[in-house]
């Protein structure tokens, strides 16, 4: 029956105890990531989305539940063990590199197998960075370039899953668009699977195949990304979508454009 998910989370819970209060940061959250697909996790601050991917990467110890990679349980293993098949991409790319190490060393050090210069060259080409960037230090490149190098490092390490935590949130518009395209290419060309945590519904809808909406440590809605965004069932999902402010949303100008055989009525703005 069907394919085995590359990653499965079964009823993971995480509880914080403070004085007389118990906070459930995660309350029996489950998910399945299929090989080669991108799963978005959306929610507002405190919804538990970052805690969830920290659990997946074994950076936290769950109070209950199971984690499985290709059907094999790895709950309770070390972050280094999980690092063999998954890598995190953080919002703060600079913070994820040793500031005193050239990229060359940081990137090569992350690889589990033998060095593969051809693959490294190919990846750099893919992220549109010259090989000379490897000789530079983190603080001498821009935020967007640094994030692209952290993606190179993650893929070069041999990871089959990327866990992206607000990976494009700190980037400028053009860099963000480039990183989104890049992640799609990695999915297409290398079959890499991803979990993409973001508060930005625009980015998630452009990138992800499936989506999970989280609120207060629980998953309130999940399913096909386009379906959930087009026909949200949960009131909270609807509230989130209603709060998104976009150019042209109230004028209905996009619907008018679609009617005219998808010719944009104003230059430069794609019809969606």
């Amino acid at each position: 029956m069907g394919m085995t998910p590359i990653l499965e989370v079964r009823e993971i819970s995480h509880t914080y105890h403070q004085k007389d209060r118990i906070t459930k940061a995660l309350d029996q959250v489950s998910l399945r990531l299929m090989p080669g697909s991108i799963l978005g996790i959306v929610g507002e601050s405190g919804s538990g989305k970052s805690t969830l991917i920290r659990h997946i990467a074994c950076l936290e110890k769950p109070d209950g539940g199971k984690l499985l990679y290709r059907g094999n349980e790895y709950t309770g293993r070390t972050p280094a063990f999980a690092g063999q098949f998954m890598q995190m991409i953080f919002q703060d790319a600079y913070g994820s590199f040793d500031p005193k190490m050239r990229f060359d060393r940081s990137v090569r050090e992350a690889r589990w197998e033998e060095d593969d210069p051809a693959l490294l060259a190919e990846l750099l080409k893919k992220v549109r960075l010259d090989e000379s960037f490897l000789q530079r230090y983190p603080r001498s490149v821009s935020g967007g370039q640094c994030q692209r190098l952290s993606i190179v490092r993650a893929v070069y390490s041999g990871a089959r899953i990327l866990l992206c935590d607000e990976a494009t949130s700190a980037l400028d518009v053009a860099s963000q668009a480039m990183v989104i395209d890049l992640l799609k290419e990695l999915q297409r060309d290398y079959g890499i699977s991803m979990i993409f945590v973001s508060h930005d519904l625009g980015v998630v809808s452009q990138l992800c195949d499936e989506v999970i909406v989280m609120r207060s440590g629980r998953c309130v809605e999940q399913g096909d990304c386009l379906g959930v965004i087009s026909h949200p069932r949960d009131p909270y999902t609807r509230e989130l979508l209603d709060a998104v402010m976009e150019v042209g949303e109230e004028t209905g100008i996009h619907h008018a454009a679609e009617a005219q055989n998808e010719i944009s009525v104003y230059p430069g703005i794609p019809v969606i």
Partner: protein
Amino acid sequence: MKQNTSGTPVIEIRDLSLSYGDSDIVRHASLSIMPGEIVCIAGESGCGKSTLLKAIHGMDAVNVTGGEIYFNGSRLTDMSRKERRLLMGTGIGLIPQNPQGSFNPLRTFEKQMRETMSSHGLAFDPDEMISLMDSMGLEDGRKLLKSRPYELSGGMNQRVAIVFSLLLKPRVLLCDEITSALDVTNGKLVIDEVESYAARSGAALLMVTHHLGIADRIADTVAVMNFGEIVEYGSTSQVLYHPQDSYTRMLLEKIPRVRREKW
């Protein structure tokens, strides 16, 4: 969104150039804002939009290397420090991007607000503050008045800072990325609240944002900045729906939009 087309602009800047130390941040910018008008300055990090706001607000760290700034027809650079200081808050209000930096972390919000109001000769009404907080999704205002900035999250502090600025009833309110620390649902509440303040008081808003959706929602006029220059300036419908400048077009194209099924 009412807009007087005649009369004195509440803020006018003419051919303004600004620098920090040796580096030029803003070059030859001109803008004029009428009472009740909502103007958005859009652009990406480092384009000079926050520096422009700081100069209008009168912060000392920014050097005016050329051009003029007028408030209600009077030149800001002609005013004494004391005059400018009195103008801050009630004449020209500023909601900073990082509100924690403008609060004393250890004093209660009530004490800080009371003090700010009295330094401008205004009376402090706790109920007004509580109802404003409530409209921005800050529940239990009575308890919040007794809390201190360090006890609240960044997003809550941001909203309290907005409440502070509104209570001073400025004639023009400068907003620097006021939704960047907020979740989308609270961001929308805040935007609606400052817009309604402008509508009921006739104050002008000058908002700096990288978020073009906000500009489309509330602005009458949009100025797009790139590398210290205003590259496009016009009515919201002109700039966002018929952009002339290639940089404006790039911004509009590259922002990820929510993709929905076609009907």
